[in-house]
């Protein structure tokens, strides 16, 4: 596949650029190697894992909700993860990171299940109601989180979780993101089944798919990827929306064939935006969430505008 090869080649260039982009310059001595090993390489890996994971989570969510305009940050998943995080921080301050991760994942799971239960009741001929419902729902969860954080003086933490950035990534402080990588890898095994689930419940049942199980697995993968990303680097918007939509335009939605391209493109997009985030106000940094907020919103509007006239939704 040419597209896949082109993205992979671009990714190699981006990785090289990422390793050499930053305030400290990389030198061929022990100090230079140390900087790469402790900061640049982990940061690059974190961007790749988060990008690939969020793109994969987005496309799974779009299949489960049977709507191409949803992704974890617009359907309450990320907001629910944030709420879980605030609650566990209040209930058990100073709890271990894995416990926070668990609480965020559980909250994301419940929040996303709630979203899917809601959108099942919406009329299928009104596809835009689904993302609207997601935005309102996410807004309510986000508002509850902000209120709790405000009351208990946690707003500065909230700011870190809600605005994704990779400047804090160091060796030893990002490794949970490999769980997002593992969840994305598992999605490859189930790619065909997620596509069939996207045909709808009746068509899936006709094909002998264990629909409930596939829905539950998809929910779990989306929740793990989102929660791990929010807790480790913060919320990164639009990746899960823009990447699958562009891939769908070019190559369709048969995930058995397209999921590698989705993952590679997501990784490339987030890494490219992180490099931009390091360079735009050099030597200062902008959060990657902000860069993607602007770029992603623009891309999304373009996608909405260029939507083919019929048969979509």
């Amino acid at each position: 596949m040419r597209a896949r090869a082109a993205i992979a080649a671009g990714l190699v260039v981006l990785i090289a650029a990422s390793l050499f982009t930053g305030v400290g310059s990389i030198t061929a001595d022990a100090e230079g190697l140390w900087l790469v090993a402790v900061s640049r390489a982990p940061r690059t890996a974190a961007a790749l894992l988060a990008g690939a994971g969020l793109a994969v989570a987005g496309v799974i969510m779009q299949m489960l909700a049977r709507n191409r305009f949803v992704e974890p940050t617009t359907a309450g998943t990320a907001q629910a993860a944030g709420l879980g995080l605030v609650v566990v921080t209040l209930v058990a301050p100073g709890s271990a990171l894995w416990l926070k991760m668990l609480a965020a994942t559980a909250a994301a799971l419940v929040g996303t299940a709630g979203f899917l239960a809601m959108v099942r009741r919406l009329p299928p001929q009104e596809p835009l109601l689904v993302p609207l419902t997601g935005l309102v729902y996410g807004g309510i969860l986000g508002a509850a989180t902000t209120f709790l954080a405000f009351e208990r003086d946690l707003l500065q933490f909230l700011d870190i979780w809600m605005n994704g950035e990779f400047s804090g990534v160091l060796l030893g402080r990002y490794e949970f993101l490999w769980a997002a990588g593992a969840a994305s890898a598992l999605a490859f095994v189930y790619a065909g089944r997620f596509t069939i689930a996207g045909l709808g419940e009746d068509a899936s049942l006709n094909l002998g798919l264990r629909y409930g199980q596939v829905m539950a697995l998809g929910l779990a993968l989306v929740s793990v990827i989102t929660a791990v990303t929010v807790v480790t680097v913060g919320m990164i918007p639009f990746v899960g929306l823009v990447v699958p939509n562009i891939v769908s335009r070019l190559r369709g939605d048969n995930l058995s064939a397209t999921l590698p391209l989705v993952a590679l493109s997501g990784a490339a997009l987030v890494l490219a935006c992180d490099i931009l985030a390091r360079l735009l106000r050099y030597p200062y940094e902008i959060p990657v969430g902000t860069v993607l907020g602007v770029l992603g919103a623009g891309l999304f509007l373009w996608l909405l505008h260029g939507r083919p006239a019929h048969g979509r939704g």
Partner: protein
Amino acid sequence: MIEIRSLSAKLGGAPVLHDIDATIAPGRVTALVGPNGAGKSTLLAVIGQLLKASAGSVTLDGADLSDMPPPERARRLAILRQNTTITPRLTVADLVGFGRYPHSGGRLDDADLRIVDACLAELDLSALAGRHLDTISGGQRQRALIAMTLAQTPRALLLDEPLNNLDLGHVRRVMEVARTRARAGVAVVVVLHDLSIAARFADALIALKAGRVFAAGRPDEVITGPTLSALYDTPIDVHEVAGSRVVLT
């Protein structure tokens, strides 16, 4: 052979089917007819295990369909509901290929691909195989969905209003394909509204009214003026034209 015994079903709490008994033989095309709301689609969905029966049983070749594992059931029975919409952007060949999923588990081998190609050709879709579903017409999409159920190579084939959106040439083609499958030993059940089509292509009819079997038998037994007039509560004439019955309201 599909055997339906004392079958009742509810939709949203309201009883829709009452104590249905019917036998659907392989080797025949059975048309399911009746007025709107008679329970045709519900009966088809209950046979296909998309809806649970509130009482009674459905067996296929002696095996109870309700406790068959889903993948095994999908190898033996295929059902297409009316107005199925497909949101993912798939090619026609992808969609028809999914019909092999119950057999292949997702990895299509040469034999699977041959079946897919044959089903595409049967429904006049070979030239559209690489097209995405959102770039073809509603009738072409409908044929792709029918081809997907054919690719399941089932023992029982249930089609709910498969002729929606089809032009006359493809109406004939779909009904002839249904007949070919029936002659090969498949039990084919088709929900039809056009009774002239039913008279021409079906070997047997089951007429439902208000959730009960109103009449059942060969076309010449069921498609008569008095039976149809009572079934639809409106005067209906049946004429014989060129050896086939034509139904006029």
